[in-house]
């Protein structure tokens, strides 16, 4: 069965998002989160989505994951419209999302248990995946005993356990320190190359997106639209040293320019509205002193 899955994997996992629009709230306090977004992830491709905070990139991922229904347009996985969450799409969240009451191994087994896979098979798969993540020796620990980087590694292999066609990652390394982050990126590229799985990766870290991706979509400030699509021509496998090459630097510069415009655009109304009070002070009718 496992081999059959591996075979099928090679040309599955095609995400196709067309003319997507998402609006939250009604009439008066309507917020357009995402507008007219079309993007795709080819089977086995690593695609990043980058943009200023609040631009709706997480919303977009929630739609592909099946948590949120789009107001307009549609999202498809291998030609089938996405309507609800399912184990054909593995999701790795920014917050640690391991079940604290389950041991590390039981966490990895969770998806298989839901699918009705028997105990010994679950055990085998979970142990193999934990070994891949370098955490087999922690299989009987509880998540609260582990560091952030370890938890996120387990989060990744847990999402992979059910043999999904795509992996959706919502700033998975956002909460980690820089050193751990760099190691995690290398681990992720290695896992991705082995699994030949499509990845949609959300980040606001420019270097991270370049290092990991085949292609990068840059989003505008709210309402989120696709501003640019950039191919990353760097060869695989990627190594940490590549970040010092001129090609890499040029890409960083290019993306920085694109993002900066959008970040400023995103912050502009806030800066204007708040004026002097924008520094965390509350200005009331009696002046700044009101808070005391």
């Amino acid at each position, binding site marked *: *069965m*496992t*081999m059959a*899955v*591996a*075979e099928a*994997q*090679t040309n599955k996992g095609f995400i196709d998002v067309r003319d997507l629009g998402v609006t939250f709230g009604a009439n008066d306090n309507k917020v357009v989160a995402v507008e007219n977004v079309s993007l795709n992830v080819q089977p086995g491709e690593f695609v990043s989505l980058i943009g200023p905070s609040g631009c709706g990139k997480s919303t977009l991922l929630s739609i592909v*994951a*099946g*948590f949120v229904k789009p107001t307009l347009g549609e999202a498809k996985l291998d030609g089938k419209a996405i309507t*609800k*969450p*399912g*184990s054909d799409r*593995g*999701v790795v*969240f920014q*917050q640690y*999302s391991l*079940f*604290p*009451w*389950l041991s590390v191994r039981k966490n990895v087994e*969770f*998806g298989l248990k*839901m*699918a009705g896979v028997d105990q010994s098979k679950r055990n*085998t*798969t979970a*142990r*193999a*995946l934990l*070994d*891949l*993540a*370098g*955490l*087999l*020796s922690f299989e009987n620990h*509880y998540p*609260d*005993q582990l*560091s952030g*980087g*370890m938890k996120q590694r387990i989060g990744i292999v*847990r*999402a992979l*356990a*059910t043999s999904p066609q795509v992996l959706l990652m919502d700033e998975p390394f956002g909460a980690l320190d820089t050193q751990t982050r760099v*190691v995690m990126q*290398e*681990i992720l590229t*290695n896992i991705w*190359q*082995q*699994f*030949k*799985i499509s990845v949609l990766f959300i980040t606001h870290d420019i270097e991270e997106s370049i290092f990991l991706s085949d292609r990068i979509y840059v989003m505008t400030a709210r309402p989120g639209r696709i501003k640019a699509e950039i191919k990353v021509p760097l060869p695989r*496998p990627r190594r940490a040293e590549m970040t010092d090459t001129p090609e890499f630097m040029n890409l960083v510069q290019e993306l920085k320019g694109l993002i900066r415009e959008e970040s400023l655009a995103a912050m502009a109304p806030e800066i204007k509205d708040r004026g002097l009070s924008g520094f965390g002070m509350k200005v009331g009718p009696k002046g700044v002193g009101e808070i005391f």
Partner: protein
Amino acid sequence: MGSMASAKIVALPMVDKHSDPEPAVAAVKPVAVEVSAAETATSANAPIAASEFPVPEPEVVPRVSLTQVLRNLLAKVTRDRIITAALACISIGALFLFWYLGTKYRFEFYIRFKNVPTPYEVYQQLTQVGLSNKYLFNIAISVRRILMGFFIAMAIGVPLGLAIGKYQRVRDLFMPVVEVLRPIPAIAWVPMSIMLWPNNEASIVYITFIGAFFPILLNTIHGVHSLDGVLIRAARCLGASEFRLFLNVILPGSLPHIFTGLAVGMGVAWVSLIAAEMISGQFGVGYFTWEAYSLVDYPAIVLGMITIGFLGLACSGIIRMVGSLLMPWLAFAPGGKR
């Protein structure tokens, strides 16, 4: 050891068999940054062979450093514990001393020790009357009432609490009636309970049930609400159906709060039971205590009180013990180590 690393690749469910195994070996290397140096060495030296190894062997991790840490910790804790135990003795001792002196010198300063029995009189009461069949029978009756009321409250309170916590419509249906009934103390139910239920026993169990029910229900609801939403989303992505979500995520996730509710519920159940036994009862430790007062048997009053205290302590102790057995992970939770 060398072939073990290659087994890692083969055992995976969705590894593309056409892919070059080389990156797989590379994959293990950076991982080892957080693991031990020994592991790095074995992974790096792994030959590239696609032999069939279904399960990677369990790796024996040297735990020497961990036990060392634990031992150090234990040494620290015992010193702390000695102080804790000493303070506990002083605390209890002071209470007895106050009681002893009060009764010995018959203190009269607003509160009156005139009729209060001495500790020794109470001890005598325990040895003579205390272990009689009547006394033990009263305890047995009270324990039976508590267990019945409490378990019915748990059997209804926990599932209802989970449903109210999870579904808005169930909440809309049940919460108004809960909010109306909740402020009525269980003791206020005594007259109504006697009218409602066919016999005395049932009415006392009902009052006990009322006492335990609301804390259990409300804490369970709170448990569901305080469950991190990302866990539910994660479970959904991993293919959990509604029923499985309940059983595998919502129930274990709310368990800490449920146990808080059980502990509080048990306390209120005892309060309600004793009051009910004193007012309407026949048998039970509450009845025993009140009867002693009616018969001017002062040492028996104190014996009854102490008995009630011990029973309450034992019940909450059992709940706490079951809780820590069912929720071993809490020992590691942030802020969980007390």
